[in-house]
């Protein structure tokens, strides 16, 4: 007589189900909707995303610096940093540059479009640890996008922090993002320093590389700067080397400098290996790393 092997339904296997991330959650995406689209530059728009189900919406929370996987059936799925306040639950902003398959498709969609969201994934900026300290938020180009969540976090609790600086560099004035918010940031006693590579006729501000205002900020700081400051850095790969070097030379400890790194991602869950740096998963251990970790990662920056 033949022996029939029993089929194991893994979703019913108790020992396979981890409470935090059950097997079923792996390919689950929250049905969500694009509830607002706000053009920011020629090539970037801000998309407000709302998780449709009320219960799911209320249970969706994230920490500044984390990202979601955003999916449009049949078009693609890609990681995007959450670029809004972490106080709101289940409703958040993504600032998306139109640059490839999925993102170019998005540049044509209309309000109400249904999308899928999974996450939030990855590490975050330890904003709570920064209480009582100076914070330098340093962004280049699209790097301002993941910094908007920590910026808003700081605004919401402004009195907890000492001097807060945003140093932001872009190639051209018309590539600047969130321009409509600068006045508000300043009202919250944040010193905002913007610099562009190539000025145009209208540009009144500074021109040059981002290291210029950063060096000036460091030079003007008192002796306590190295002991009471945190830095958050995000920008294109080349920027990290120069910015982090300045910060380290100014005596900021490597464990108090945070960077957010970008890598190709196809899963966001530590499985596809596309995001690996050396052999560290950017999607699990990052995208936010402290500089000490970066120093120990080969080929990180």
């Amino acid at each position, binding site marked *: *007589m*033949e*022996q*029939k*092997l*029993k*089929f*194991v339904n*893994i*979703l019913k*296997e108790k020992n*396979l189900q*981890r409470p*935090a*991330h059950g*097997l*079923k*959650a*792996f*390919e*689950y*995406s929250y*049905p969500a909707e694009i509830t607002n689209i706000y053009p920011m530059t020629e090539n970037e728009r801000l998309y407000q995303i709302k998780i449709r189900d009320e219960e799911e919406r209320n249970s969706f929370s994230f920490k500044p610096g984390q990202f979601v996987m955003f*999916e*449009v*059936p*049949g*078009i*693609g*799925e*890609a990681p995007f940093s959450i670029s809004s306040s972490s106080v709101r639950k289940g409703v958040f902003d993504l600032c998306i540059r139109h*640059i*490839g398959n999925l*993102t170019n498709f998005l540049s044509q969609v209309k309000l*109400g479009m*249904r999308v*899928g969201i999974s996450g939030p994934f990855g590490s975050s900026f330890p904003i709570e640890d920064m209480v009582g300290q100076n914070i330098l938020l340093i962004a280049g180009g699209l790097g301002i996008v993941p910094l908007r969540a920590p910026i808003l976090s700081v605004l919401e609790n402004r009195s907890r922090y000492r001097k807060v600086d945003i140093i932001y560099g872009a190639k051209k004035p018309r590539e600047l993002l969130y321009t409509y918010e600068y006045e508000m940031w300043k009202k919250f006693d944040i010193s905002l320093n913007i610099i562009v590579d190539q000025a145009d006729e209208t540009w009144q501000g500074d021109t040059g590389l981002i290291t210029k205002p950063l060096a000036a900020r460091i030079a003007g700081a008192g002796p306590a700067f190295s002991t009471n400051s945190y830095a958050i850095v995000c920008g294109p*790969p080349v920027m990290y080397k120069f910015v982090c070097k300045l910060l380290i030379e100014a005596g900021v400890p490597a464990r108090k400098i945070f960077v957010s790194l*970008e*890598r*190709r991602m*196809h*899963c966001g*869950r*530590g*499985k*596809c*290996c*596309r995001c*690996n*740096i*050396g*052999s*560290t998963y950017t999607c*699990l251990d990052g995208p936010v790393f402290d500089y000490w970790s970066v120093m120990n990662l*080969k*080929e990180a920056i």
Partner: protein
Amino acid sequence: MIFKTIKRDELANLYAKLAQHLIVGPVRKGLDKNNKAMYDFDRVDKFADLCLDYDTTKHSAKKYFLPFTETLCTFKIFKDSWHKKVDYNINEPIVMFGLHPCDINAFNKLDKVLLEGVYPTPYYAAKRKNIFIIGVDCQPQPWCFCRSMDTDTVLHGFDLFLTDLGDRYFIEINTATAYEILQQLDIQDPAPQDHQLFLQKTNEKADKFIASVDTTDLTKILDMEFQSPVWQEWGDRCLSCGTCANVCPTCYCYGVEEEVDLDLKNARKNKHSYSCNLIDFAEVAGGHNFRPESHTRLKYRYYHKHRGFVEAFEESLCVGCGRCGQACLADINVPEVIASVRQEKI
């Protein structure tokens, strides 16, 4: 662990017991250029086709656990909404008859990432839990260095394991299911001389290895030699073809693509195995490539397997099967690459 023995002839009855399921095992695929038999894992239709004394297979058995292409989910698209349906792509148990220790160890290593990681993968889990594994001992081939990787024997991750003792097999029984099936067959308790013969076989095997890799302090050495010129030399030879990842039992990286039907009513998300040696592995939108040169990609493959994985799990992500070296068109193989990084004469 419970041990038994089974007469060589009785093995056909074990096969027959399981024959209502899909049985996959080593089968002969043809002859190589030296007129030597070539084997691969494939569906087995009758016991006589099963070649349990095979030397190695060209590909590993991973395609049954991690298919080269797999549909992760399908979408039904309606006018202003859509519905997602997920299928783990296995509905019936499968029997794998005749895996060598290296290949079973490979699954044990994959388990670490795919079953025990932060986000366990249901696609792999469903298959892993529904594949009945019968292991069989092997004879070291000139390219095998599993002994260096501590994977020449296997302790878990299978249902039962057979060791050829001549006119009978020594059986290690690892699961209750395997025990229940064997109970219905003509099996014997091993006699003291069977134990002795089993150990003798194991010792004889240990003496037959030719290839080896020195793993002493390897994680440190890989870190120290990150800039070593030997990487460039291997990189210059590498064709960036990804064959190594294709045959490797432990390579699991992949890419995902979505596709939509022309009528826009149905769409699906497909996963396909990838290789870190392929040029666009780490290229992001906008064109920046984090590993544009061949040697940086080749180095990354070694780095992941022999350093990063060791750091995470105290063992390497290579079982020393030697398949990549055998398959490589540019004759790049693990023992030589590692020896050169260690600055050993080769």
